[in-house]
């Protein structure tokens, strides 16, 4: 029965072989690795594998249950699609970075203890940073450093929480945390996880970093970091009210910013925050239906968000820009990319027959059935904004609108294939939701849920159609502008710059003033003290040492005169000394 091969092994060990291979063989190899990992996920049975006792800690590498299975399923599938999309990239190191990245998130998914979680968590952060740096632009370098620092900060929150939790409970096991038992330690762990899930206000790293990543790297990044965070939240913190509220806030916050952004990949990044908000809210509501919804939405979201990033990435790669104000009229040159993008766009908006419809509605229904009408309405408001920005604004200004004069070609065949396959999966899940629902952690709740009910269909179609009407009424107002908008990254970008200025102006000037004082007075003082020590050395220490030496020389000189070489004299002196000793004894 022990047919568990950790799928992360394929990626982490497999990465080392990539630089040794060339050309077509490497391409085939790159596709075989995720395919094997996917197969290993399909063929594994639930249970606990790879349990080791190390330094008194119980390390569990392979906890397989329905929750870890659904995430591993979509992660390995996504890895295959992502590799296919990036197959034309000739740099081995880019493929290696994405393999380590995928390996890291699979490691987290199957981890049964906090130590394993932490190690793979940091591996993800580091590997994904390289996916930003490999774009090799000055802006990417800076953004990559900011991204890494934020994730190190999040990792430290997590680590501090883990240590405190271990001190309190004496256990490293990563299990469901009861709401009543959650103290400071557990909330530290929660914030570490929340940073990776881009929970407001720890979200600003995401729209800061993802638009600067490589075209193919962004496709991986949009899938793994936030969804791994959703997995760990679903594992440890279902039913935490704070997550329900923060998640809903994220959904609205993301769509608000996406409405005013100009860069395609920045718009999509804000929609990751928004969509992950649905999942976080689902986890926070915590009912079987809502947690099922969070998992289903994570599954569907990984596919359509990757598809959207693939479409936007193709435009960026073929035209050299992702700014909407510089694009327009591309439908004549990139019609296939447009169609695939639109499939992603209507999937994320939740059109009937596409994947978002069957997954998002589960969370909304979960909010309704758990009697959170305010959350439910806000989640529906966010879906208005989603269709507005991703489904209408972005494709309109990139592929239609005014003609920008660019005449790009369609992207390479492997990219089109990746987009086509992902589009098919988005459609397939939409028309055959059972395939997705069968994977969900609560099977009975999933079997009872039917997305294609008349009220739900009516509600969705009305919202979508009338959002479209609103878009065309206010089309002029939505004209993209070549500007950026402030977000919470202002605090660490401007405040650190402010600190640097403060440092230059005050700390550094104090430092140089101090140096001046030291040069003027300190040097003289040192010279005086040194002069005293030189005098003391010469007359004090040298005097003692020299006089001792002179004394020794004098005694040696006298003693030399005794040594005449005459035996009679030696005997006389010896006898004299004996007499002296006997005499001394006698008198004492």
């Amino acid at each position, binding site marked *: 029965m022990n047919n568990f091969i950790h799928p992360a092994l394929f990626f982490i060990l497999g990465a080392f072989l990539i630089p040794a291979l060339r050309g077509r063989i490497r391409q085939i190899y790159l596709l075989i690795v995720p395919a094997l990992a996917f197969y290993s996920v399909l063929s594994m049975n639930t249970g606990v594998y790879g349990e080791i006792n190390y330094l008194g800690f119980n390390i569990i590498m392979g906890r397989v249950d329905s929750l870890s299975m659904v995430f591993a399923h979509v992660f390995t599938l996504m890895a295959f699609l992502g590799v296919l999309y990036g197959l034309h990239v000739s740099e081995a190191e880019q493929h290696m970075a994405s393999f380590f990245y995928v390996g890291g998130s699979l490691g987290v998914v199957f981890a049964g203890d906090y130590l394993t979680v932490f190690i793979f968590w940091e591996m993800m952060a580091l590997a994904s940073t390289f996916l930003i740096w490999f774009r090799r632009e000055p802006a990417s370098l800076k953004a990559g450093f900011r991204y890494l620092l934020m994730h190190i900060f999040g990792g430290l929150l997590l680590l501090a929480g883990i240590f405190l939790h271990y001190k309190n409970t004496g256990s490293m096991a990563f299990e469901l945390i009861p709401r009543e038992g959650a103290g400071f330690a557990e909330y530290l762990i929660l914030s570490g996880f929340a940073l990776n899930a881009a929970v407001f206000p720890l979200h600003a790293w995401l729209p800061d970093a993802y638009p600067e990543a490589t075209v193919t790297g962004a496709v991986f990044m949009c899938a793994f970091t936030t969804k791994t965070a959703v997995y760990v939240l679903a594992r440890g913190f279902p039913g935490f009210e704070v997550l329900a509220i923060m998640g809903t806030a994220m959904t609205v916050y993301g769509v608000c910013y996406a409405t005013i952004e100009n860069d395609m990949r920045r718009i999509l990044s804000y929609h990751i925050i928004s969509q992950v908000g649905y999942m976080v809210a689902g986890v926070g509501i915590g009912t079987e239906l809502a947690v099922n919804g969070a998992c289903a939405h994570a599954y569907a979201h990984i596919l359509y968000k990757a598809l959207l990033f693939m479409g936007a990435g193709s435009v960026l790669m073929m035209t050299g820009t992702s700014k909407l104000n510089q694009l327009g009229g591309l439908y004549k040159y990139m019609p296939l990319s447009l169609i695939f993008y639109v499939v992603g766009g209507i999937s994320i908006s939740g059109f009937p027959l596409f994947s978002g419809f069957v997954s998002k509605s589960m969370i909304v229904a979960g909010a309704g059935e758990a009697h959170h009408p305010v959350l439910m309405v806000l989640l529906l408001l966010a879906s208005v904004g989603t269709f507005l920005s991703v489904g209408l604004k972005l494709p309109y200004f990139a592929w239609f609108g005014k003609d920008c004069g660019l005449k790009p070609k369609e992207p390479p065949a492997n990219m089109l294939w990746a987009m086509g396959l992902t589009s098919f999966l988005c459609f397939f899940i939409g028309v055959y939701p059972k395939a997705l629902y069968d994977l969900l952690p609560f099977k009975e709740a999933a079997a009872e849920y039917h997305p294609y009910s008349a009220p739900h269909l009516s509600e969705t179609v009305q919202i979508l159609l*009338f959002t479209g009407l609103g878009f065309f009424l206010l089309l002029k107002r939505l004209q993209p502008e070549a500007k950026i908008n402030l977000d919470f990254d202002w605090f660490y970008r*401007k405040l650190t710059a402010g600190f640097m200025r403060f440092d230059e102006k005050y700390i550094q000037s104090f430092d140089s003033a101090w140096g001046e004082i030291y040069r003027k007075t300190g040097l003289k003082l040192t010279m005086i003290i040194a002069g005293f020590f030189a005098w003391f050395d010469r007359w004090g220490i040298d005097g003692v040492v020299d006089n001792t030496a002179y004394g020794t020389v004098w005694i040696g000189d006298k003693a030399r005169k005794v040594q005449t070489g005459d035996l009679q004299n030696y005997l006389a002196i010896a006898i004299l000394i004996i007499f002296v000793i006997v005499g001394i004894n006698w008198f004492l």
Partner: protein
Amino acid sequence: MNWVNIIDYLRNNIKTLKQVLYLLMAATVIFDVFMPRHEAHFFGDKIPGFWSLFGLICCILLIRLMKGLSHTVLMKKEDYYE
């Protein structure tokens, strides 16, 4: 199959396309009036056509409010951080 021609055909017949969409909107609202309702979680679930109005108003508010906020507070030049 030439996708560009299909898209161009739709663009050339934008008027018909619009009419089809208006018809579709009317049809969804009419469907909502006659649809059997149960399990309302929210007062809006009981009002026919509520979600149409919700979609339209939210969309307009979202654009107006966010563009206003952007132009007054949030928007900066692209080299703001350099």
